[in-house]
């Protein structure tokens, strides 16, 4: 058992005598030296009065009070908190990677080549006919994909008639939100007893008003939708499209392709599948792929190659632009670097390890996992214990806890995804944390966390009376 105590620092106010190194340069610039109008200048700014080493130590301490994937395992189910290889940062940090978005295509041929190759890689990985790299996040990709589906139905003069999108109850919350953002009514599909799409309920729900079914496969319980071909037939026979939520593609990478299963439109979460940093507000990337016949609706521009020259092309019935330029270039560059470095065999190994790690961890913990066989993630039940309290107690054991209380089909759900990047030793450490909490008494769990920098949070007061900036702390 690994002992754990998170760093906590209480900083006292500096005496402020030592100026920042930059301030030792006493050259002065008066506001009158500048061309700024008077109403845009001021005499002073309110800054904390501390020396440079104090400032560095402040931020170093803050980093020690944090927990991230570079500190330890982070099995947040559905989120795929993968380790981000540092070599991709190196590549993105190369001076040659600094390309202005408005550079003339003739002078940005290398950049366009990377875009074009990535479009091609993703098309092949997804079994899609064409890919756009423009959407700036997974959820933005979902919205773009649904807008493409909408453009398709409008093109067929069925835009007004097809006003519903079907979403399984256990789907990611973004599916409901993306469909609603695109102006659709949502029809929620119940799961069957083994946690998959209920075919009878689906047959009953589809019809002339169905625009699309949004599905993730494996689903949020980690279960493969084994009736996927029949699902595709039911949706297509009704005139609807099948949308693939790529959040769980890391389970299938190099082994099965959404396009081959009958999906018409899909998005890629490059931060989950290809180890780019998680956005936390951006910049991110959420490319989408479409099957043959839907390319003409994609956002503009697309990168094409003509001989050995890369050009920007506007698809014939494009839905327009969904982001500036071609999307977030450096995130896409990291995606390209990751895929290139792993190659075909590396990508196949990724999905094997993702599934193996989840199954090994589930085997090692003393909690019930009601649904299976699962792939890259599993949903354990905390049983009689509140899942949020269980998670807090896991913090005391030095690991990040799983996603809690979702999907709701499992009581007190602990949705766990160790990812392929964790070693056997790190999986054992996670299992030990799960099992220590399983054996802990109720009082200890109710008092957790005790070993973290911030102790148990008063959630109710935090939600009713949030203090969202440092200025409010002194109120």
């Amino acid at each position, binding site marked *: 058992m690994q002992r754990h105590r998170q760093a906590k620092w209480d900083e006292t106010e500096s005496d402020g005598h030592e100026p920042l190194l930059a301030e030792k340069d006493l050259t002065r610039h008066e506001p009158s030296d500048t061309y700024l109008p008077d109403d845009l200048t001021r005499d002073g700014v309110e800054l904390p009065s501390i020396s440079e080493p104090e400032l560095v130590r402040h931020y170093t301490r803050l980093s020690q009070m944090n927990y991230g994937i570079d500190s330890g395992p982070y099995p947040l189910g559905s989120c795929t908190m993968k380790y981000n290889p540092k070599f991709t940062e190196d590549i993105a940090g190369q001076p040659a990677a600094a390309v202005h978005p408005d550079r003339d295509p003739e002078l940005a041929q290398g950049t366009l080549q990377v875009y074009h190759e990535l479009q091609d890689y993703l098309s092949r990985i997804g079994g899609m006919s064409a890919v756009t790299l423009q959407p700036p996040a997974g959820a933005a990709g979902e919205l773009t994909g649904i807008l493409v589906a909408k453009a398709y139905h409008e093109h067929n003069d069925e835009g007004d008639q097809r006003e519903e999108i079907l979403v399984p109850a256990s789907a990611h919350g973004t599916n409901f939100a993306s469909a609603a953002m695109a102006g659709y009514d949502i029809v929620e599909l119940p799961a069957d007893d083994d946690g998959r799409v209920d075919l009878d309920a689906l047959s009953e729900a589809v019809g002339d008003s169905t625009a699309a079914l949004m599905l993730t496969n494996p689903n949020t319980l980690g279960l493969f939708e084994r009736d996927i071909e029949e699902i595709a037939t039911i949706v297509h026979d009704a005139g609807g499209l099948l949308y693939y939520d790529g959040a769980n593609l890391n389970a299938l990478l190099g082994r099965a392709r959404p396009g081959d299963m009958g999906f018409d439109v899909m998005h890629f979460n490059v931060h989950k599948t290809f180890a780019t940093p998680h956005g936390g507000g951006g910049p991110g990337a959420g490319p989408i792929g479409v099957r043959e016949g839907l390319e003409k609706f994609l956002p503009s521009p697309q990168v094409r190659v003509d001989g050995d020259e890369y050009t920007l092309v506007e698809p014939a019935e494009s839905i327009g632009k969904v982001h500036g330029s071609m999307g977030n270039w450096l995130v896409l560059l990291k995606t390209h670097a990751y895929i290139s470095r792993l190659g075909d065999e590396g990508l196949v190994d990724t999905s094997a390890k993702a599934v193996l790690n989840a199954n090994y961890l589930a085997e090692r913990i003393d909690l019930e996992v009601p649904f299976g066989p699962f792939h890259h993630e599993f949903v354990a039940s905390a049983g009689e214990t509140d899942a949020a309290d269980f998670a807090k107690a896991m913090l005391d054991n030095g690991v990040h806890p799983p996603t809690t*209380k979702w999907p709701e089909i499992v009581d007190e759900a602990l949705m766990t995804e160790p990812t392929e990047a964790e070693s056997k030793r790190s999986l054992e450490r996670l299992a030990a944390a799960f099992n220590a909490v399983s054996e802990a008494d109720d009082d200890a769990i109710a008092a957790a966390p005790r070993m973290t920098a911030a102790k148990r949070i008063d*959630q*109710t007061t935090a*939600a*009713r009376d949030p203090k969202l900036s440092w200025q409010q702390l002194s109120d």
Partner: protein
Amino acid sequence: MSFDVPSDRRYLESHEWTTTDDPIRIGISAFAQDELGDVVFVELPDVGESIAAGETFGVVESIKAVSDLYAPISGEVTAVNEDLFNAPELVNEDPYGEGWMIEIDPDDDAAFEDLLSADEYREQIE
């Protein structure tokens, strides 16, 4: 644990209550607030909006869950309990009194007959 279910009002299976005499007020039951836990936010319609029986008219959010509020009867909103915006805890502390949510002018005075009586609702939650 048994919860207070006042017999001077009617109920929905989804745990909303409505009074049957003026002013017609709507709120959620003691059982519902206990299931939700600490309520942290309540979203209600504006005065003048119409609400329809069985349709959502607002949202109640607790530290555990976000739940839709369903209208027991149809009508026009005549008052909103604005105290809840700054003190959502009133829903927990006094669900049948200070924790009321909206007042409405009902479209059909006979509509109350379709709702659960206090005894029927009590049976459902026991």
